[in-house]
């Protein structure tokens, strides 16, 4: 049987280790894959894709004919739907650290770009 005191020591050690890890991440900076959602030249959102834990959506655009819906998942981002005629932004698919392809909706002056990554590729031809 393990003494209660031993258990307390084990738990305390875990607390220290976890706290240490958290502080280091804050201090050194986590590996960054950041996505910037830029509308009309203005950066609306900066999202650290590596910190995303659950899927969520962002609606961009106030008026009909100017709408894009962005979906963010851990490590990835895409335009899941839009009301532009050509749907190029939707057809582009998911951008991520390894596929740093900018997602562009020209009619809506919207760009989603991946910045600051050192993923598998430096650029994507297409």
């Amino acid at each position: 049987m393990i003494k209660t005191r031993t258990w307390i020591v084990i738990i305390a050690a875990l607390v220290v280790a976890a706290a240490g890890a958290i502080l280091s991440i804050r201090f050194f900076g986590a590996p960054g894959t950041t996505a910037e959602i830029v509308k009309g030249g203005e950066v609306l959102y900066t999202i650290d894709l590596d910190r995303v834990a659950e899927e969520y959506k962002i609606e961009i655009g106030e008026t009909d004919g100017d709408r894009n819906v962005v979906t963010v998942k851990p490590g990835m981002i895409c335009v899941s739907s839009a009301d532009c005629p050509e749907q190029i932004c939707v057809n582009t698919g998911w951008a991520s650290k390894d596929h740093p392809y900018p997602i562009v909706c020209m009619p809506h002056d919207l760009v989603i770009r991946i910045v600051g990554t050192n993923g598998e590729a430096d650029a994507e031809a297409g």
Partner: protein
Amino acid sequence: MAKRIVTDAVLAAVALVLFVIEAQIPPIVPIPGVKLGLANIVTVWALMRIGAPDALGISLIRISLGSLFTGTLPSFIFSLSGGLLAFVAILLMKKLLRENQIFVAGVFGAIFHNAGQLIAAAIVYGTASVFVWSPVLILSGIVTGLFTGLVAQLLTKKIPKTIGQRRN
């Protein structure tokens, strides 16, 4: 037999209520997966006092119905994964713990619950990036697990041994 069903059903209901109530409270911290886990009080107590099969049943009912009421398909998968891993962890701990060490089961149960959720998230989303959250979730697991574990321990002392005990 009927007594057993009734006891288990009541416990499942209690766990469900705790779960739903907790879901209404806005999260303290904006990180998914960090929550008190009040329903685990019931799981830990049931496992320690009644036995594994019943505790498992209660837990599964709570996870399924709870997700039905408050969650989405992905969150159900995460809850299930976390719940099962936590259950296995506490089951193993049962051998190692004395009655006044039940709070330890709470701690490790919570840690493994969060681990199970992270693993499920990594698989569902196909990326290991979610593990960046591990240290935070270990820490919150320790804190919340301590709380739920101590409550469960208290209840084992206070609730008479006759309740839940199966006659055989």
